[in-house]
């Protein structure tokens, strides 16, 4: 097993008084793909958004426990959120490019860092688009609006946008749920390439996708109070072939969810 990149310890998350995630403890290995699966409302997205502190954008969210990134607890008060979010990038469920040009979408993260060097920006934009397997499709229309791209291209653009700020971890919240099967497969291929360099955590509804693409799988389920909890975590092949918990088996064989 690879080194541990993110270590989650006794994580509780509350929306107001409602406990949404209960006592999650989980280690995420670096340079691999970890899939979070489970039925709707089990706190998968909440868990993912705890890893770059995006939950804090909502009012009344309270987080307890620790999330260690390279051994450093990101919930400590002296953590700089801007640095954290550059290290831990995020791709969202629906492709959400800015209403700007393709080039400016990828350059956005660099511009807000105050990088002015035109050549450097062009270089990083090209590199990021190449890594996101989008360069060949857009190299002749970099200054066209990003909204003219297809959904699958937009999502790869969003991945390129994240790559441009040179993250270490990429969080993906059901990145293919709004895409057709072919675009989905392209995103999955891309993920396999990216895991050579990045640690990827993906939330997915689609169990086949988790089985196809991930190295490790965590299965979440809600308890009787609707609080999300971790049922089982391990190698993807084991989770899908010989789950230890009957509830995991029930879910992956399609008995509920």
């Amino acid at each position: 097993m690879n080194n541990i990149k993110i270590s989650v310890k006794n994580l509780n998350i509350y929306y107001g008084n409602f406990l949404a995630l209960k006592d999650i403890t989980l280690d995420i290995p670096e340079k691999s793909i970890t899939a979070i699966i489970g039925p709707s409302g089990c706190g998968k997205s909440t868990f993912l958004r705890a890893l770059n502190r995006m939950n804090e954008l909502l009012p009344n969210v309270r987080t307890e426990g620790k999330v260690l990134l390279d051994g450093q607890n990101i919930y400590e008060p002296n953590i700089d959120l801007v640095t954290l979010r550059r290290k831990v990038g995020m791709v969202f469920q629906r492709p959400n490019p800015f209403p700007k040009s393709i080039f400016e979408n990828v350059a956005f993260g660099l511009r807000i860092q105050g990088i002015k060097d035109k050549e450097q920006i062009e270089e990083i934009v090209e590199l990021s688009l190449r890594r996101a397997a989008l360069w060949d499709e857009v190299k002749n229309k970099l200054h066209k609006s990003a909204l003219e791209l297809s959904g699958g291209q937009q999502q790869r653009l969003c991945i390129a946008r994240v790559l441009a700020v040179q993250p270490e971890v990429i969080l993906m919240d059901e990145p293919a749920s709004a895409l057709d099967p072919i675009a989905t497969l392209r995103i999955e291929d891309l993920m396999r390439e990216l895991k050579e360099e990045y640690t990827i955590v993906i939330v997915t509804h689609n169990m086949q996708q988790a089985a196809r693409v991930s190295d490790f799988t965590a299965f979440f389920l809600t308890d009787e109070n609707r609080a999300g909890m971790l049922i089982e975590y391990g190698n993807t092949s084991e989770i899908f072939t010989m789950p230890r918990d009957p509830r995991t088996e029930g879910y992956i064989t399609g008995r509920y969810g």
Partner: protein
Amino acid sequence: MEAKERIAYIVVSLLASVAIVSVILIFVFIAKESLPVFFNPEIKKEANLRIFFLTRDWQPIGLEPKYSFLPLIVGTLKVTLVAIVVALPLSLGSAIFTAEFAPRRLREIIKPIIELFSAIPSVVLGFFALMVIASWVQDIFHTSSRLNAVTAGFALAFAVIPITYTICEDALNTVPRELKEASIALGATKWQTTIKVVLPSASGGIFAGIMLGLARAMGETMIVLMVSGNAAQITWSFLDSVRTIPATIAAEMGEVAFGSAHYVTLFFLGLLLFSITFIINYIASILLERTQKRLRGER
């Protein structure tokens, strides 16, 4: 049941068409009354396009009436400019504050208060300007006349702010949350997100807000009638008294001889004002629609 639906449909569409037809009829009526400027040889001697736009004086009463639009246009532009310069930073600033930064509770207090401004009758605003703003302006700029373009512009700003604010606020609010989240997840601060993502995305709506504020300022009558000084003159100073197009129509229409050159001229002024504000409103609605389409990802 179906008959009921049909009746409802007919009633509603009838009401809607009454509204549209009225606007068209108003336009037709004003246009018809101002037509003699082009076709009546008697009136053309006293009032024609050359006199309107190429002479300098507006003196409709006298042995030799003078009907130049230029001092009125200059006056209207002056008060409108002051009103927009004052109102824009205030309305856009508060819109950014309530849409992006204020906690929800505070927003729910501030937004209705600003919008309530539009419920103040303009005669009351005019009175307030007459008593209070005029004195401030005089104290600050030491002007000879209390009533001038700056005083009128400040008073007009109160009428413009609720419109511009509301439309800007709505435009900022329609920027999808996903875009803001994407920006923040890339390491942008709240302020960077506002400047680089939210404002550009909402720019069409913001321009529409400015346009509609502009149209409101140009068309407002009572405030300028009370506090602009009503002197029709062409000067560069904003501290001179001015006379605007709507104030002129309001002040003179009641006294004018029916069918006279003066009467026709006032209608032509009205036609001009109507056309300008109509065009501005139309541009604003196109901008609004375009922004919304763009944010929905259509093009």
